[in-house]
């Protein structure tokens, strides 16, 4: 045997071993994939075509499973559509586009079936809600003519209230002065603030044109243009949402509706029918280790909702105290405990607790006083958003109270840290890879960093400051992302803070009226964000690709339902709740590429609490040891 033949034999042998190893590995993966295909094998498909007397783009096909109360929604591409992963059962299907709609068709789908339907649309209401008879639309420049006082509105009011808030509320001078007084905290010498917005413009507001002269100019302007004889008006969208029909045709939405309570029960019970508008009200979603989706229902009585997306089964758990002490966010730790602090509720001045629900026992096993030593002196103090560090310690922001509570898991110790920013209104709270706690400050549009080792605060002002920021998040590179809402003519933006350089970079959303709420990275590094709707512009879930700085826009099934929170799975599915829905509250999901669905279960890339890195890390311990 020549040395060359021997060498060849060795190479072949090594290659064979490598191939066997790779096959073995992929065999394991194949097993999982096969199992997941098995999960999908019992589901059905529906495709078809849509015609209309006029051209249309990306018509929305609503496929409603009437047995399970789930709606799938897909988009047409050149008049064709397809969908998959449909639960067997009875369906009603209809198609809507801008100014066009079809009749509903009924069909029954069996497991594994691949059905086809054809639709004809005609002129109709389409996807947008019916207009209100007492409101008209006009261009921004018509509603906001130039003049003294406009600057106050654009730079002050519109930071939080969008461009529709003021012209929708025509009123006399008494009312406008009372509204101005509310923002100035005119009555706060005689009573406590009712919410974190009252008195937000009191004191020496340095960021806005808001002196006495400007306030009088504001009054003159609003009484002139939005006085008692004016009609309510909305600003007309002057830009179509840029839609990529080919990309949309790959996408599929699902909305699992929350069951409406029977008359006289739950939100319709005599106790709650009036206080909670008598409806259920989905807020935030999170995933547990088993692939279930959990939702906070802010209607009365407050509930945690557990959804198994693989079956559509929902289970409700009412909060302790009868479900009336306020709720908002939730988070899930790596042990599967669902954490949900108390917010305002029907006893806004009562003590508030951090609640922990154990799905295994189905009991609220933790009820931790959020401020046991009364560090926050406000009589009204409400908790909202949370984060978990690498040691599983829990941090909770006091949106009413301007502080951060830390619950140390090992010792059970509760410490409250007042936030350094004056009048702080902490909204979103997240933890980075180094166990710094980051908070979006709604009052100013700054980001606050709490160093949990040194117990020190650092504030960061984005380039667009002041701005309207509610939520923030962290990507796999430990960059901090925040969403800045549009303000007057200034578009909405995404802001990235590179922690290594301390440099902010901002990206303007190419949609003037963008109101980006939550931001969340996917495993590929794209940033997904919920975009609140305007009166004639659909609610969206959008994607930003930082690598090539491209944007993609996905109209949601419910035109006018805003979404506060998005969560992304390891497969890139984007979960949300259409919070603003008045009659179809739900838990929803967007599959940007339905062909990549391997399971309907919702799993974080690295498990709860949903960080884009494996957890737990040991960096805090390392840092502490180095000191």
């Amino acid at each position, binding site marked *: 045997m020549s040395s060359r033949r021997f060498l060849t034999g060795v190479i072949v042998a090594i290659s064979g071993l490598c191939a066997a190893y790779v096959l073995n590995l992929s065999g394991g993966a194949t097993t999982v994939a096969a199992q997941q295909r098995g999960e999908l094998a019992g589901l059905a498909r529906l495709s078809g075509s849509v015609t209309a007397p006029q051209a249309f783009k990306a018509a929305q096909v609503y496929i409603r499973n009437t047995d399970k109360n789930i709606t799938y929604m897909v988009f047409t591409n050149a008049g064709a559509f397809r969908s998959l992963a449909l639960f067997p059962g009875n369906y009603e299907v209809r198609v809507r586009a801008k100014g066009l709609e079809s009749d509903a068709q009924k069909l029954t789908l069996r497991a594994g079936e691949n059905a086809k339907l054809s639709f004809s649309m005609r002129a109709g209401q389409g996807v947008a809600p019916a207009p209100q008879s007492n409101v008209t639309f006009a261009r921004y420049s018509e509603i906001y003519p130039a003049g003294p006082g406009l600057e106050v509105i654009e730079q002050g009011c519109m930071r939080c209230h969008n461009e529709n808030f003021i012209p929708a509320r025509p009123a*006399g001078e008494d*009312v406008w002065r009372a509204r101005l007084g509310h923002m100035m905290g005119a009555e706060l010498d005689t009573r406590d603030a*009712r919410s974190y917005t009252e008195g937000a413009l009191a004191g020496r507001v340095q960021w806005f044109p808001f002196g006495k002269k400007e306030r009088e100019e504001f009054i003159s302007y609003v009484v002139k243009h939005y006085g008692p004889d004016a009609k309510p008006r909305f600003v007309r969208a002057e830009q179509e949402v840029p839609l990529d029909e080919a990309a949309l045709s790959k996408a599929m939405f699902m909305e699992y509706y929350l069951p409406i309570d029977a008359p006289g029960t739950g939100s319709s019970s005599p106790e709650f029918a009036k206080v909670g508008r008598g409806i259920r009200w989905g807020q935030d979603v999170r995933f547990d280790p088993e692939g279930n989706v959990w939702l906070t229902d802010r209607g009365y009585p407050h509930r945690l909702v557990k959804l198994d997306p693989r079956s559509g089964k929902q289970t409700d758990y009412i909060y302790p105290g009868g479900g009336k002490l306020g709720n908002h966010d939730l988070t899930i730790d790596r042990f599967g405990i669902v954490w949900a602090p108390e917010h305002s509720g029907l006893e806004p001045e009562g003590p508030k607790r951090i609640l922990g629900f154990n799905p295994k026992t189905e009991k609220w096993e933790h009820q931790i006083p959020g401020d046991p030593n009364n560090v926050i002196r406000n009589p009204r103090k409400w908790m909202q958003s949370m984060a978990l560090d690498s040691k599983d310690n829990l941090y909770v922001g006091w949106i009413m109270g301007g502080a951060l509570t830390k619950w140390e898991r090992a010792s059970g110790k509760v410490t409250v840290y007042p936030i350094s920013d004056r009048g702080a209104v902490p909204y979103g709270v997240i933890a980075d890879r180094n166990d710094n706690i980051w908070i979006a400050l709604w009052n100013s549009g700054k980001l606050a960093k709490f160093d949990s080792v040194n117990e020190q605060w650092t504030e960061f002002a984005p380039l667009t400051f002041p701005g309207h920021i509610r939520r923030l998040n962290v990507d796999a590179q430990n960059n901090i992302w925040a969403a800045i809402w549009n303000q007057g003519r200034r578009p909405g933006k995404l802001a990235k803070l590179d922690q290594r350089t301390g440099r902010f970079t901002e990206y303007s959303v190419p949609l003037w009226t963008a109101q980006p709420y939550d931001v969340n990275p996917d495993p590929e590094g794209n940033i997904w964000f919920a975009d609140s709707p305007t*009166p004639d512009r659909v609610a969206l879930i959008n994607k930003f690709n930082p690598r090539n700085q491209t944007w993609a826009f996905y109209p949601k099934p419910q035109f006018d339902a805003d979404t506060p929170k998005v969560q992304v799975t390891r497969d890139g599915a984007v979960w949300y709740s259409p919070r603003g829905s008045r009659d179809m509250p739900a838990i929803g999901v967007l599959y940007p590429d339905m062909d990549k669905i391997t399971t309907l279960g919702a799993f974080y890339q690295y498990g709860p609490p949903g960080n884009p890195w494996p957890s737990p890390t040991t960096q805090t311990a390392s840092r502490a040891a180095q000191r």
Partner: protein
Amino acid sequence: MRDCWNWATATAVGIIGIALLAGAGGRTTVAAQATGGKRSVMDGVYTAEQARRGREHYRKRCVLCHLDNGQGHAAVPVIPGESLEREGDAEAPAVAGEPFQKKWNGRTAWELFGTMASTMPVGGPGVLTPQEYADVLAYLFELNKFPVGARDLAPARDQLETITIGR
């Protein structure tokens, strides 16, 4: 400690409020007896001057939520897409017009007075004196186009209980 203080304060305010109302009622018992029998808001139970005073209180304490002419929150259009939180708006019912009159039809002025004094303004019920609440009530009657009369509406239970709301 603070909770105890709040409880004690609330209790004291409540007792004082009840005493004020009771006292006012006692003073007007004779007047009520003099008028005798049941009355309706259509009989002219307040004066124009009292409604004017009430309007001043309304402008300071009520107009933010109940708006210029008592239309209440329902007069504000829903902005499609607006969060259910509706930051900046209070949930205020109409205090004038058909919805208000339908809601209170057949009930007494004392019930309305008591609701106002015990719950309004939000965040500070009881900040007005009983007479001031009665003045605001007179203004609401004016907003609802109930006729004026020759005598002020007194903050007296035995008098207000005799007045039925409705046309």
